[in-house]
């Protein structure tokens, strides 16, 4: 996003919330003035209790916001700030630092294609291109036209043994061929379909060996599907 676009977005947000566009940044929100969904409040409060200092819960709180709304929405950040007793700007400064937090809407399913050295040596650029093409995103860092699939290139995901690999909804798959991209996108679009079941990281043994399928802890895990609902436009829904 260009600075000009960011500026106009901020302006819009200010007008929507009936603030002075160039007023001082908001202080700590008054808890009574911010409506926070109960589950979200409880999750953030539980995180705060786990640490000696409440600010340590910044990242867990932002994770909770992102899981609920699909991305770190301004409203969501404000709600978390109200629960934590910090300013929204503080939480936003945290969210903008870390790569996994989204400050703008993304797709329902997240595809991160590793493009770092080991994956690159084995064809990660082609794989990224194949995913963008299969999902018709028109390039990395965008979502498919139906908003279902978001694709971006990512730095080393720590799975060079299955290079080239991708992380789909926080689960790892590899090694992949460009042809796998179309299958994966198809499977993501179908409700309840498992994604690339033959390429899951958790079924692999050490050093490329076979893993015993009797491991109930591994195979019975619900990990192949997105484990949390990702509401498409929760922010808009909430507003009304």
């Amino acid at each position, binding site marked *: 996003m260009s600075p000009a676009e960011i500026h106009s977005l901020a302006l819009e947000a200010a007008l929507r919330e009936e603030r002075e566009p160039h007023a001082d940044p908001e202080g700590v929100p008054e808890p009574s003035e911010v409506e926070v969904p109960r589950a979200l409040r409880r999750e953030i409060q539980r995180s705060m209790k786990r640490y000696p200092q409440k*600010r340590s819960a910044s*990242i867990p709180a932002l994770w909770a916001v992102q899981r609920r709304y699909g991305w770190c929405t301004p409203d969501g950040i404000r709600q978390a700030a109200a629960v934590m007793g910090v300013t929204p700007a503080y939480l936003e400064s945290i969210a903008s*630092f*870390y*790569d996994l937090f989204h400050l703008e809407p993304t797709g329902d399913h997240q595809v991160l294609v590793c493009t770092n050295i080991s994956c690159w040596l084995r064809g990660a650029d082609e794989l990224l291109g194949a995913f963008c093409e299969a999902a018709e995103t028109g390039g990395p860092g965008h979502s498919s036209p139906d908003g279902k699939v978001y694709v971006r290139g990512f730095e*080393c995901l720590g799975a060079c*043994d299955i290079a080239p690999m991708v992380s789909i909804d926080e689960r790892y798959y590899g090694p992949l061929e460009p042809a796998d991209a179309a299958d994966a996108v198809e499977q993501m679009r179908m409700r309840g379909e498992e994604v690339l079941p033959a390429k899951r990281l958790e079924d692999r043994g050490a050093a490329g060996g076979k893993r015993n399928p009797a491991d109930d802890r591994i195979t019975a895990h619900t990990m192949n599907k997105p484990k949390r609902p990702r509401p498409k436009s929760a922010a808009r829904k909430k507003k009304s």
Partner: protein
Amino acid sequence: MAAETRILFRNIDEPGLASIRTYRRLGGYEAVKKAYQEMEPEQVLHELEESGLRGRGGAGFSMGKKASFLPRGDMDKYLCCNADESEPGAFKDRELMQKNPHQLIEGIIIAARAAGANRCFIFIRGEYDLQGDILDAAVEEAYGAGYLGTDVLGTGQQVKLVVHRGAGAYICGEETALLDSLEGKRGNPRLKPPFPAVQGLYGGPTLINNVETLSNAPHIISSGAEWFKSFGTEQSPGTKVVSVSGDVQRPGNYEVELGVPTKLLINDLAGGPPKGHKVKGFFPGGSSSPVLTGDEGMKLPYSFEAMQEAGSMLGSGSIIVFDETTSVVDLALRTARFYHHESCGKCTPCREGTNWTVKMLERLTRGEATPMDIEVIASVQENIIGHCLCVLGDSMAMPIGAMVKKYRSEFDDKLISQSYSAAAKAA
């Protein structure tokens, strides 16, 4: 495979190893009992120090010595397990946590005894969601069994453990940036000294160790320092889980004694480069380590001291192999882009140096660079090293510097004068 020596990876693919029941059936948590019920904290610390175990996260510093730097006394002391494995090429901690989480938890409880730490954290990178879930479940089991909590095994010592997930930032693997991130701030490194052992998390004394380092602790306590020293070399005792990836036929984690020939790791265990290709060079310790050419590197023993002598480093123990079809200029650009993306921006030499290195390498790949550009690339690297709060900038400067030095002709071939003369020849 005979060449592997599996200690941490023993039983790694045993069904159900991630559950406390199977882990205990295979002898797990005996070391914790020994450390808490039969040994004094000083004895535990002494045993770890005596074993000569060196940190497996990259720096290779003696783990026992690091633990001994923490002050004695009754204040809150912290232990952070660095599980932010983000170094390109490294994936050993992922497998250790995913398949044997209790080994790590047991190691943390033992290290907490040695350092007198009462609050422990596992800082795991946000991308490792599956591994985070497995650790969460394992920590809960350990609390249920009384290995964690306010009264560990009835000794009255408190050890609390929290799994903290990051959210995607390479810099958080740097220990002081990790502390800032854990305190809920942006992950910027801190000025050292004071070192974390004196003033770390929340201003208290803090011990920070890598996953693999801590996973070694149960084995040292149950079998003794002498046993541990019977593996590896004198200065690098024990085994190392080595992640081998890139242009090899069987990429994966291999646990070997330190000091084995590098050739054995790359050619025998990982299957060497694809048929008909040969090793052009490799990173011996993740993307931050200066590259070694195939000719100089393959004959070296794989140990901390041998890699250092060769002008590189063992780092996190991650070998990335590239074969002769790889353009080193492209490789340099890919490496530089990573560090440019991940630089936190706090120190100027790193923020600007990574940026300009990327720009000049891009110009070189477009065939528009002048001979001076290569000199500037080299001098920028020299001006980054040692001039920042942390080693992120150095981590780019060292491999890029080594690439320019060792594969200079490839860089020269991309110069503008070369592309002119090639065009002239073609005309």
